[in-house]
């Protein structure tokens, strides 16, 4: 009898710790859900602004260039690949029942001429590093710095080439408003990718909360 009572006394704090940990995990999950919900709504609002600016610039370009020069009839229907694509990574690979994809934008990838000039675009701009690029803590010499600079310049030129290619479907000489519309829609794409990630996070934490609710009831 005394042994049973001492067993029960030992188990009680362990059970309390377990419940406390579960409560903390659930609170963390709720916070994550609310954060991603807030991010989702804020980003959608921001996307609306970028799109409005883009539509306005497009309307201005149409007014200066003429309605027939900016029309869906001019869209390129020849076989071609998208220059701006999405990379998908699975963050929850260990738990296939709770998928959490992570999206990142790859803008103006130039695959033909220069495969190393692809510009992935997460929140920080990254460049695919050529050999001999600087590592943290290493000292540079003049040759390394100039190779990095020339690679950057060549990358920017490739990007400009791809941008111009997109504009040329509307003719050789386009209104500056069309260029600003292009920039607005590029900004909108950045926000769209962030919205997709916020959505993924929100749905993942939502499904976790549902599971917790089912297991507790």
């Amino acid at each position, binding site marked *: 009898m005394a042994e049973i009572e001492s067993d029960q006394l030992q188990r009680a704090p362990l059970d309390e710790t377990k419940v406390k940990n579960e409560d903390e995990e659930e609170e963390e999950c709720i916070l994550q*859900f609310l954060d991603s*919900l807030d991010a*989702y*709504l804020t980003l*959608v*609002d921001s*996307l*609306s602004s970028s*799109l409005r600016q*883009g*539509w306005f610039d*497009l*309307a201005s370009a149409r007014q200066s260039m003429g309605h027939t020069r*900016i029309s*869906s009839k001019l*869209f*390129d*229907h020849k*076989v*071609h*690949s*998208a*220059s*701006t*694509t*999405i*990379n*998908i*990574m*699975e963050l929850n690979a260990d738990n*296939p029942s*709770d*998928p*959490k*994809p992570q*999206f990142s934008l790859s803008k103006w*990838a130039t695959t033909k001429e220069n495969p190393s000039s692809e510009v992935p675009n997460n929140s920080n701009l990254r460049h695919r590093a050529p050999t001999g690029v600087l590592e943290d803590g290493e000292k540079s010499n003049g040759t390394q710095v100039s190779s990095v600079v020339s690679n950057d310049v060549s990358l920017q030129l490739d990007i400009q080439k*791809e941008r111009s290619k*997109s*504009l040329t*479907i509307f003719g050789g000489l386009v209104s500056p408003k*069309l260029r600003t*519309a*292009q920039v*607005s*829609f*590029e900004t*909108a*794409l950045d926000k*769209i*990718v962030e*919205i*997709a990630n916020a*959505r*993924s996070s*929100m*749905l993942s934490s*939502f*499904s976790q*909360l549902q599971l917790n609710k089912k297991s507790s009831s």
Partner: protein
Amino acid sequence: MAGRAQIPTSNSALIAMIADEDTITGFLLAGVGNVDIRRKTNYLIVDNKTTVKQIEDTFKEFTNRDDIAIVLISQYVANMIRFLVDSYNKPVPAILEIPSKDHPYDPAHDSVLSRVKYLFSTESVASDRR
């Protein structure tokens, strides 16, 4: 949550669009346009001649393709095929409802927000729609 199949990780997946002409034009300027060898595009321009069946078929096609990561759909177009959009629950491609020029974004109609809002309310989503 459904969609228990493994998510295909991809390095160059597409953004598909079902929207009005201006929105599609803008995103094509940003470089997302793709035409494959079967001459299929990754976008559908919705105008007053586009039927609901065409929109439904395009939505089903885009959501079943392996090379599409995100489907952008104007919210007013999504409202035409609301049942289909709301019943979609795979993680990839992600369906994002976006505003259009003449129809601002309404969070009350967003399918993702509808799915999660019951956490804040004891009523079901179906009863709100009545």
